[in-house]
């Protein structure tokens, strides 16, 4: 039995579909447990990705990891789950470790592939500079899957949705305020990312980065010094001490490619580097390189993307 936890408070994210697909791939019957306000029709669609049943507790807002842990542990116990799958996002990071202790089940944090034939699971280590294979010693295992590691796959029909309650206890965390800038694509889940560094000279020059990101439907990111001096918000900082991402496409403009920066982005499938200095270390990690001034190249690239998009419709 496989249990998959997804957060559906803001609908079904791609990361949620990935975790259900992952549950299906590791085999057996997949039950999904979730909280929040997604409609039953929406939740029933999870059947198409391999779920045979969805259990939803609408009384839990998901803000307290302790409540979610109690909820998931109770369901895991009820259905006799041998594997519990999370997305390695803010919920997975907060709840999976708690559940590991509660169930005495080994945790594979940040899985990037389905299990190998010996049962070990591949994860990034040393901030993406290497990979490791983790084996769980307990009967039960918990896996949190790094977003964008596998693609959602449709394999079935819609499934049944059941309301549950009474497992989660009360919340110890009071939410005073939620600040969510509208319209932004969350960086860890983004498939396309446009990133820029100190080579852009100042925060007033980010308009062209946002234009390119918008033309592509990409999220924006930056190097550490750029976040440190306050040109960009901290949550955009990628690298060894920032967010680690693995998008399909990472475009880096005016970033030198220091080892600590590369650590957070070298899991990207394709890397494009734009830099005036042909000796910039980033070119060694790039698939496509452009030696040139970002102030000229980026607007030109944005126009080219727009022309390309126009031919696609």
């Amino acid at each position: 039995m496989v249990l998959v936890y997804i957060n559906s408070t803001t609908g079904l994210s791609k990361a949620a579909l990935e975790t259900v697909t992952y549950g299906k791939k590791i085999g057996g019957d997949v039950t999904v447990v979730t909280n929040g306000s997604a409609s039953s029709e929406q939740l029933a669609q999870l059947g198409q990705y391999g779920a045979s049943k969805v259990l939803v507790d609408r009384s839990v807002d998901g803000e307290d990891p302790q409540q979610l842990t109690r909820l998931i542990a109770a369901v895991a116990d009820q259905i006799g789950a041998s594997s519990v799958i999370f997305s390695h996002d803010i919920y997975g990071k907060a709840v999976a470790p708690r559940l590991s202790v509660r169930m005495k089940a080994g945790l594979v944090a940040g899985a990037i592939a389905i299990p190998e034939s010996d049962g070990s699971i591949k994860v990034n280590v040393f901030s993406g500079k290497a990979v490791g294979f983790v084996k769980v010693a307990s009967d039960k295992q918990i896996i949190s899957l790094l977003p964008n590691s596998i693609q959602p796959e449709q394999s079935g029909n819609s499934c049944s949705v059941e309301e549950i309650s009474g497992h989660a206890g009360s919340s110890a965390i009071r939410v005073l305020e939620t600040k969510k800038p509208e319209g932004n694509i969350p960086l860890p889940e983004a498939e396309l990312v446009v990133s820029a560094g100190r080579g852009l000279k100042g925060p007033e020059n980010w308009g062209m980065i946002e234009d390119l990101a918008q033309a592509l439907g990409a999220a924006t990111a930056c190097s550490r010094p750029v976040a440190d001096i306050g040109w960009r918000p901290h949550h955009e900082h990628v690298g060894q001490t920032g967010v680690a991402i693995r998008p399909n496409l990472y475009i880096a403009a005016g970033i030198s490619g220091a080892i600590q920066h590369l650590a957070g982005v070298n899991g990207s499938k394709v890397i494009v580097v734009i830099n005036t200095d042909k000796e910039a270390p980033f070119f060694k990690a790039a698939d496509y390189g452009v030696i040139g001034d970002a102030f000229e190249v980026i607007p030109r690239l944005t126009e080219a993307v727009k022309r390309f998009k126009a031919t696609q419709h």
Partner: protein
Amino acid sequence: MNILVCISKAPDTTSKIAFTNNNTQFDENGVQYIVNPYDEWYALVRALELKESIGGNVTIVTVGTTADEAIIRKALAIGADEAVRIDADPKDAYFVAMQIASFAKAKGFDLVMTGKETINYNGSQVGGMIAEAMDLPFISLATKLDASGTKLTLEREIVGGVQVVEVETPAVVSCAKGMAEQRIPNMRGIMAARTKPLTIIPAEEVADLSSYVSYNMPNAKSSVKMIDPSNMDELVALLHNEAKVI
């Protein structure tokens, strides 16, 4: 406020990453260990700031061997009052968390702080595990923390934004960027660190729940294809036809 800060060692960020013993062990040859940056820059420094503003005591704890006393002295030099080393060579996060939880339970700290993850294994596991073992609330990926009486007010990362939350002590908090600024220890701190108390306690018997069976280096990139800066249509065509990412 009586604060416990959990610190871990991590290889210096410029370390060459290599493996030995048929790729089953990290090659420590020539590797310089530092205090894991998230533990030092964010958890420890914010704990010290809280102590400076509202009073209290900051204890650091690490699960490690005698080789780890250098990072303990570094954390003491930055300003922690005392240190505890739980004597073991840890193999998994569960082992570490169980040791720290059992120590912390006996001492009754108001606040237990960790970094958001280590930069070598990046698991984000220890904080949540300690919280569950102690049956305490857990605020993960906190970017701000203030305390008044028994109330903590925190800002934490959520999908696509931040959230302000409130919780009663005791609690466990994992710290991310934004919490505090790095502090460089001064000469006085370094001298004082030599005489601050370091208690060594034996580890408890705990079975590991997981282990690394092997490691690998990611596949090296084939050589980079250079594109003429005046021809961005070509780049877009390659991204579509060859790389198939747009």
